[in-house]
Each structure stands twice: as C-alpha cells, then as structure tokens.
C-alpha cells in the first residue's frame, strides 16, 4: 500500500479497498509477481525490443543486452516479490562495474529500468482492463515498489561511477607530482598538466617534505608541461618558492610559457625572488653551478 497520503487517487483507492478489499497488499504483490513470472519470456522480449528501438545501450551487442536483460528482469521481479533491495543493490553495483568501462551512460541505465517499469505496467493494464478497481489496487502495490527499484538501480550506478572517478583522481594525484633527486642535494619537480588549487597545495607539501628528507639545497621546478595557470595558482607558485627558501633551498623555475610569464607580470611578482631559466637543461646547469658541480667530458679530462 502506498505511503503517500492526500492525493485523491490514493483516497479513492483506499476507500475501494475498504469497501471491496479482500486482498492485503502483499497478496496483490504475490499475484502481480505470479503474472510477471508467467509472462516472463514475452515481457522480456518486448522490453529488449523497446531498448533497441530507443537506441539505448548502443555500446553493447544484441546478445549481451539479451543476457543482461534476463538477469535484470529476474532481479527486478525478485525485488518486487521479497521487497528486499539489498540483493538488487548488490546486483546493480556489479552490473555497473561491468558496463561502466564499456562507456554506458547514466541516462541509458536509468532509461532501461524505466522502460521495464513501463512495459510491466502496460501488461498490468492489459490484464486488468476489465476490472478497473482491481487495476488501481494492483498499481498501488506495484508503483512504489517499481519506483524504489528504479531509484536503487540508478543510485547504485551513480555511486559506482563516483567510486571509479574518485579512484582515478587519486591515481592521477599520486602520479602527477613526483619529486626526483637527480644529484646529491638537487631535486627536480616536473609539473605536467593543469594545476588546480588543490593540486598546487599538494605539490607544495610534497616539495617541502622532499626538501627536508633529501636535504636539498637547490630545486628545479619545471613547468614546461603547464600551458597556463590562473592568478591563484601563480601566487601559490611564488609562495612555494618563498617557503622553499625558508627551508634553506634555492628554487629555479624553468620552462615558463609566454602565457604564464604574462600572468606573473600581471600579478606583479617580485622577480628578484624568482630565479627563472628558459629550459630544464639550463635550469639544471645553473643548479649545478650553485652546488659547485662541473660537468666535463672525458676527452677534456685527458
């Protein structure tokens, strides 16, 4: 029985139930499930046709859709019968895990579940069209359960997607900020890609920690791979340079693109504090000079 109250149809349905009502809602559901089991092949077939008609799940083959449809149908009916959604939830998560890598979109998953709901509702209309009051009661039992199923599947799918996205973000974050030691007391921090404030903060933390653990005296930050940065991040870069100096390390920034140079000039960076060299090679050479290294070829030593 629906928990919603106040709509006129609910009231009508309830009064009908009081007047005629011989079956409890669970009985109605049982009848409903029996009907869906009986017509399983037919309804499933119709559903699959509707899916391909509306061009959903285009990333999957016909056979795959059919196999998946069968198990979705069975889980759906089972959830209707037992009103236990845990199994369905687990199935939805499992399904999402399999189809997300194939590029299935949220609207497709929600779409097919809603299609199934409609197909089943139509079959109920067809079956009870002569007994309008009973149809009403059946729908009262069916609709909340069906909506909850649709909700469960959609939420399961979205949660799985978010989990995947979070996982990937973490992987990118871990990969994206290596602090490398190239010589005793010389660190290199190559930055590639877009820097957002969060990544900038993480970069700084990692660099400052790296300076301490490696006892670095000179750090080369190479931003050749950064096309542009906004004012906030540029400011952050300058702060990173100053913080490194407080730890006793000199920072050399290399590979500034014209756009970034423009940004730094616009925010009025004190260039006396920033040690910049055109490319990474030049940066490393300058760092070696600061550290007192000199690279000579073997021929020169002879």
């Amino acid at each position, binding site marked *: 029985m629906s928990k919603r109250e106040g709509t006129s149809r609910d009231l009508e349905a309830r009064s009908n139930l009081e007047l005629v009502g011989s079956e409890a809602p669970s009985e109605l559901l049982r009848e409903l499930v029996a009907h869906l089991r009986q017509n399983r092949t037919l309804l499933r077939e119709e559903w699959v046709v509707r899916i391909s008609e509306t061009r959903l799940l285009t990333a999957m083959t016909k056979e795959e859709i059919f196999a998946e449809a069968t198990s979705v149908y069975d889980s759906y009916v089972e959830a209707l019968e037992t009103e236990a959604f845990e199994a369905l939830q687990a199935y939805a998560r499992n399904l999402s895990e399999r189809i997300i890598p194939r590029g299935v979109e949220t609207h497709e998953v929600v779409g097919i579940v809603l299609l199934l709901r409609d197909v089943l509702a139509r079959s109920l209309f067809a079956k009870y069209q002569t007994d309008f009051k009973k149809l009403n009661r059946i729908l009262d039992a069916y609709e909340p359960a069906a909506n909850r199923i649709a909700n469960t599947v959609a939420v399961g799918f979205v949660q799985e997607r978010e989990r995947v996205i979070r996982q990937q973000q973490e992987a990118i974050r871990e990969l994206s900020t290596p602090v490398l030691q190239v010589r005793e007391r010389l660190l290199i921090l190559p930055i590639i890609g877009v820097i957002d404030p969060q990544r900038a903060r993480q970069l700084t933390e990692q660099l400052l920690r790296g300076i301490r653990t490696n006892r670095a005296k000179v750090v080369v930050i190479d931003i050749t791979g950064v096309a542009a940065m906004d004012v906030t991040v540029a400011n952050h870069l300058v702060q990173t340079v100053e913080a490194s100096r407080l*730890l006793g390390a000199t920072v050399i920034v290399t590979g500034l693109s014209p756009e970034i140079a423009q940004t730094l000039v616009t925010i009025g960076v004190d260039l006396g504090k920033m040690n910049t060299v055109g490319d990474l090679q030049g940066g490393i050479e300058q760092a070696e000079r600061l550290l007192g290294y000199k690279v000579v070829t073997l021929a020169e030593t002879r």
Partner: protein
Amino acid sequence: MEVPILKQGEVLIATFQAALSDADLEHLRRGLVQQVVKLRSRGVIVDVTAMDVMDSFASRTLREIAHMIRLRGAETVIVGIQPEVAFAMVQLGLTLEDVVTALDLEEGLAYLTQKFKNTD
C-alpha cells in the same frame, strides 16, 4: 622560559623551545645583540626546529635580530623551519626577506664556515 645562548667557536647558537612568550623573544634579542660583540662572534644561528607555530611577532623579531646582528658586524642564519610552518608563514606574508635560512643546524654551521673561509 629563557633561551640559552651557546658559544661554539666563532658562532653563537640560540635554540628555541616550543612555547616562547613575547617577553622571552625580546629577552633573546637583547641577549644576542649584546653577546655577539662581547664574545667577538662572527656568526649567529637561531634554531627554530621546535616551533610548530610562527606568529607575526616571532617572525618580525627574527628578522630584527638578523638585521641588528648585521649592523653589529656578524651574520645570522635561521635554521630548522618546518615545512608546514614555512608555508603557513608565506601565506601570512611573513617571508623573512634578506635573512639567510638553512635546513638545520648542520647546514647553518656549514654555511657560516664557508662564509668565514671566503672572507678570511
């Protein structure tokens, strides 16, 4: 809590403890500026490893110490600023301009030794 000032060769070393009041900092400044000439030191190291917070007063005092010591004819190095403290300071705009900093006591001593050698 008073900060002890140690003499190590030509260098004076002052090591901060965790919680220092403003009065302690003032006292340290006076002590260092007096001692540096009295003991004929050429360098001063202020070790702030134990400080997990650096407010504007502390950082201004450090800067003043460094500048006053320079006027008294010696060189100051601030050592042991923690990474988190360093970034917090920079965000507050406390960048200790014109003050030499080093990673730790060892680095600070190495810097001063090198400096003395160059000027000898």
